[in-house]
């Protein structure tokens, strides 16, 4: 009898997970070889899958993503400023690292939706054409390849522009 209660208890705890989120995390696959967990890992993936406060990512993000140089380039846009203005008029800036990743933690900025955003680089700016209403990961809507339900990766400029050398050491 005790064993049965124990089993039910274990099943109850295990069964409380969000299967949809678990599947989304599983679908991301493993870490890229040679890239440790941290701010440079998993560029282009939906950061919020693991970093939404429920784990397994240790840090919670209110906004996060990856910026590339062009819509077809796999090269990240490094040292760009990602500017946000939320529905209440609050503004915040983040910056991309050598992987093109940026992230914002709720202690620094917890936006009131919708959020308007633009990328600033070399004195130029590229605004996003529509606001973000609830997704805290760019890749929720900006995944590759572009398709019926995805606009493709976040990029700064059309193909053909020359950028300074970039990438992680």
């Amino acid at each position, binding site marked *: 009898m005790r064993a049965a209660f124990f089993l039910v208890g274990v099943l109850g705890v295990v069964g409380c997970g969000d299967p949809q989120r678990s599947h989304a995390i599983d679908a991301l696959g493993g870490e890229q070889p040679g890239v440790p967990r941290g701010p440079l890992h998993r560029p282009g993936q939906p950061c919020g899958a693991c970093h939404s406060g429920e784990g397994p990512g240790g840090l919670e993000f209110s906004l996060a993503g990856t910026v590339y140089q062009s819509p077809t380039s796999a090269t990240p846009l490094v040292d760009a400023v990602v500017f946000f*203005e939320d*529905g*209440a*008029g609050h503004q915040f800036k983040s910056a991309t690292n050598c992987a093109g990743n940026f992230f914002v933690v709720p202690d620094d900025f917890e936006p009131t*939706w*919708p959020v*308007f955003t*633009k990328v600033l680089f070399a004195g130029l*700016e590229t*605004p996003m*054409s*529509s*606001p*973000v*209403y*609830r*997704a805290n990961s760019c890749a*929720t*809507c900006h995944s590759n390849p*572009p*398709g*019926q*339900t*995805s*606009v*493709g990766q976040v990029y700064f400029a059309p193909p053909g522009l020359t950028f300074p050398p970039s990438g992680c050491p």
Partner: protein
Amino acid sequence: MTPTTLIARRSLTALALFVTSACAGPSPNDTFTMTAPSYDTFRNLNGVSVGDVFAAHCGTLDCHGSIARNMRIYSIDGLRLDPRDVPNQKSVASQQFGTTEAEYQATYESVVSIEPERLSQIVQANGAGSEHWLVLGKGRNVQAHKGGQRLVPGDAADTCIVLWVSGAPMTSMEFQAACADGSVVVPPGGPW
């Protein structure tokens, strides 16, 4: 049989009859004829489509621009209807940039499919009671809405939708102005 048993039996019989009749479905001859708000007005070829207002306020890819929603909004900036098409790019079929006619039609059908009986009553009453329609209730966050408040009573987008379900003619300046203003969402500090 004691009187108590008799009462119990009769009560059970009455209950069974009540339950049986309560569970009966509608007659096969019952029909519902929908009175939908006009597609012509929704499309509004003389101005900005009501579909563009839904697209701007509800139809981003992270909200109702998703096949995961009952109310699906199709547009150039969000979910595309043709699986070959990509947001913010020309339609493969028409080689035109913008929301396609088929997308406006699909959005219209999706929107008017939300509480069709109640919507019919509202349309027949020239808009009276529109605040009870789920689409406006959720958009205004009066009814629980994961996306929060996206429509404010009296603002341009809300007015455009209310006037549409009220049967406002396309010649109405108020309707045209509300839909035009309601199709654009800008940062609180003004356009960038």
